[in-house]
């Protein structure tokens, strides 16, 4: 099988973090009883009119700026007409030919093994969500039920260019997009609750001997319920298209675009329908809503509300704290609040690399276990910095340090007090350590001879014996130095 290049464009819908719907005052809180968060406007009753939610537009504008989009000075609403029981008006208010933002990009961040990659965006536009249809899946032919709580929820549709070239990159793109939107307070991006949804347009380019390539027909993959599903489905679909091409030789343009559903349990895409002709949505300008002029003041406000974006934070953490790509990324992914905590730990005197390790490991574990956020975390940055400093100074090993940390949380004391209370006094007396080493060497002559024969690892058992005797309190770097000295004396 020849090599091929995967080509993916992603269409992402995110629900904006508003209190109310896009065109009425109904609540958008997830999980309310069916059809309880509805009013005449979102039910599409006769005679009602939409009124735009200003907050939704502000959030959308903020997102467009964060995604480096160009902003239209003038934008309007359009009706997309189609019939479906969960669409009460039988048209969706969306944006067609004059979206409020277009031509942006998102950079997939660099990692240890690959540089940053830029993915272009066609557009980002605002629209209202439809309700939810719940079909009878028992096969008994029961009624389909419709819940209109979601109808009218503000959605931002972000359409990427087909510039994603692997399943892994598709996932990385989504992760970066989610991080960006969450950090800027635009969306909570919970795929489980449907506040982030993704469809993937996939095809492959098969290189030819003359340097050209053949493109296969584009398939739109739907029903993607997790980032993992996005990744797996793209990988599968690309493979399937290669096999299909080898069977029928069909190229792009020779068959119409079609839709496929992802079956997560079986790990396969299932081609659902071939669109014989493009659906005619009869788009036309929404006469019930005035067009919007985006003023310089609106843009300024949106810019001011952005805050530090993930790529800016990564660069700053590397430049200002000397962190590597990996650590900087680790912190940024934990969010602005935890990054800010980390910075305070460092300014309270801790070394950046150690502080990063502590925050990324112990602090995060504590937060996860107690299902709490950093602002509820009991240790102040100064107290945690004290621990980091003490551990380094005293040379406590990691296991002991964790015990100290546990005691600090349990008793609400600082590192020094906890160490005292636990009786952890690092043995740093050179003479005492040397005596213990000589004793261990005497008890284990084989280790000594093995070491002398070039088995460096043999020294570990001697170290272990000293640690055992000191209950793990021997100062590790000092022990190492003296051990080597003693072995060299033999």
């Amino acid at each position, binding site marked *: 099988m020849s090599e091929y290049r995967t080509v993916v464009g992603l269409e992402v819908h995110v629900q904006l973090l508003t209190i109310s719907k896009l065109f009425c005052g109904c609540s958008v809180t997830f999980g309310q009883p069916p059809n309880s968060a509805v009013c*005449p406007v979102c*039910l*599409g*009753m*006769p*005679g*009602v*009119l*939409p*009124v*735009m939610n200003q907050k939704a537009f502000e959030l959308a504008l903020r997102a467009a700026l964060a995604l480096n989009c160009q902003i239209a000075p003038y934008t309007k609403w359009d*009706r997309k*007409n189609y*019939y479906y*029981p969960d669409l*009460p*008006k*039988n*048209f969706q208010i969306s944006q067609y030919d004059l979206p409020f933002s277009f031509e942006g990009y998102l950079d997939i961040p660099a990692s240890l093994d690959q540089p940053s990659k830029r993915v272009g965006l066609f557009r980002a536009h605002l629209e209202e969500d439809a309700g939810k249809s719940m079909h009878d899946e028992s096969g008994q032919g029961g009624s389909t039920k*419709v819940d209109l709580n979601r109808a009218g929820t503000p959605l931002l549709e972000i359409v990427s260019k087909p510039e994603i070239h692997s399943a892994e990159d598709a996932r990385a793109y989504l992760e970066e997009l989610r991080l960006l939107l969450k950090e800027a307070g635009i969306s909570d991006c919970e795929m489980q609750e449907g506040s982030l949804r993704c469809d993937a347009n996939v095809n492959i380019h098969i290189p030819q001997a003359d340097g050209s390539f053949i493109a296969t027909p584009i398939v739109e993959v739907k029903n993607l319920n997790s980032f993992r599903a996005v990744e797996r489905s793209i990988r599968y679909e690309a493979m399937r298209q290669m096999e299909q091409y080898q069977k029928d030789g069909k190229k792009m343009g020779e068959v119409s675009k079609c839709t496929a559903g992802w079956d997560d349990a079986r790990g396969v895409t299932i081609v659902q329908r071939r669109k014989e002709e*493009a659906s*005619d949505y*009869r*788009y*036309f300008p929404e*006469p*019930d*809503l*005035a067009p919007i002029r985006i003023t310089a003041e609106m843009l300024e406000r949106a810019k001011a509300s952005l805050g530090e974006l993930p790529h800016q934070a990564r660069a700053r953490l590397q430049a200002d704290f000397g962190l590597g790509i990996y650590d900087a990324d680790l912190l940024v992914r934990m969010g602005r609040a935890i990054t800010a905590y980390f910075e305070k730990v460092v300014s309270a005197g801790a070394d950046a690399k150690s502080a990063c390790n502590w925050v990324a490991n112990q602090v995060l574990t504590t937060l996860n276990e107690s299902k709490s956020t950093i602002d509820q975390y009991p240790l102040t940055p100064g107290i945690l910095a004290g621990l980091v400093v003490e551990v380094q100074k005293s040379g406590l090993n990691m296991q002991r340090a964790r015990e100290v940390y546990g005691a600090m949380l349990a008793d609400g004391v600082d590192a020094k007090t906890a160490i005292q209370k636990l009786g952890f006094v690092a043995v740093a007396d050179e003479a005492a350590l040397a005596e213990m080493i000589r004793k261990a060497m005497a008890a284990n002559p084989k280790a000594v001879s093995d070491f002398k024969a070039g088995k460096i690892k043999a020294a570990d058992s001697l170290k272990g014996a000293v640690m055992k005797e000191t209950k793990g309190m021997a100062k590790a770097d000092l022990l190492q130095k003296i051990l080597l000295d003693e072995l060299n004396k033999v």
Partner: protein
Amino acid sequence: MSSPLAERPVRELKGLLDSGAITSETLVIDCLVHISQRNPAIHAFLRVNPEAALAQAKAIDLKRKTGQAIGLLSGIPIALKDNICTKGLTTTCSSKILEHFIPPYNATVVEKIISADGIPIGKTNLDEFAMGSSTENSAFGSTRNPWDLDRIPGGSSGGSAAAVAGSLVPLALGSDTGGSIRQPASFCGINGLKPSYGRVSRYGLVAFSSSLDQIGPFSNDLFGTALLLQAIAGHDSKDTTSINQSVPTYLEELDQPIPSLRIGIAKEFFATGLDSEVEKAIQDALMVFKSLGAKVVDVSLPHSPHAIATYYLVATAEASSNLARFDGMHYGHRSKEKSSLIDTYCNSRGEGFGPEVKRRIMLGTYALSSGYIDAYYAKALGVRRLILNDFNNAFETCDVIIGPTAPTAAFKWGEKSSDPLAMYLSDIYTIGCNLAGIAGISIPCGFTTKGLPIGLQLQSASLTESKLLRAARMFENITPWHTKRSPTFS
């Protein structure tokens, strides 16, 4: 049998109420009695709401008795076209598809009427979804012209016009998308005003064509017209197409003549098809204005021959989308045929809509469909702009443009119902006003030899209703036409 109180000019009725000479209860009972006597012949009302109307009248009378302030409408009963939503009171749009629809909310105009101590007394007949010019397209029987029961009252607000002309009620609201207030006012010998687009909230008016629809008053005198307009005009936060500008004091300004009034005459309003008796009445009206010192100027509306074609593209396109919500899924008629989703849509709409509504939905769907939208809908929007420019140019040199409201007086029942195009042409002089979004009024200006009323149309620039009413009042003040009542019931 005593003659109805509603025969009196509204100016007089309001005086009687305000002075305590009659009570609101007396007036409401008098209206209810005459409705029960006359409505079987005219069929202006689809339903009345006697209990609620009487209860409200008694409450207003009590307020008056105890010296509390009474709202502007002084306890006058008002008929509402049945496409204006009334909370708890069936609102059908004269369509089978909404035969049993009870809105859970009041239209903004209804709220405003109630808070101004006006009394919604019942709902009046119309052409189904306001589509028609004769009120023959009602699913619940046609309305008859009080001046000649063999003739139509005009449409689509034929029920409201006939209710006022037949002295069933002193005031009524209609809606005007292409002449649906002015043309029936003309045919019924009363006043009917279409306010500028955005002057009156459309919230709760079941939309036919969102960019053209406006609600407006019917009255037997201009005082009543100004009074009801005063009560319903103004910005509404529920309708973002309503204009956020303060409302002039129409009532106070009404009796102030306009010094050196400039009357515009457009030759396009005296085209072929204009009945000679109508033309004579208009020329006579012009003489009246001249006798008042008005200056007559020739103006040109070169694009008005394209108004009908433009209108039937814009209005039907919007209607095809606005009426999509009537699908039998959430409210309204649902076909009893057990069948697939698509069949349920088709059967519900097929059974629920009448032929004219179906014709317009099909026209509008076609005008918006892919491959045709540029040639039809988009082009119509361009011509609409030209028509507006024509009016704007004309209003540079004149205050009001006068002409006939309709090319003929009321025609016979069934005369044009089999010829849609002939029916459409009865709106030839009223449509431009809606396309341009300006203000227009029809006032009585004479009778044909058969004794049928003739209407004079005055049009003025957007938001100049005060000027329009004052110019009309100058005419009313020295002519007898508005005092004439139908001899049918005397």
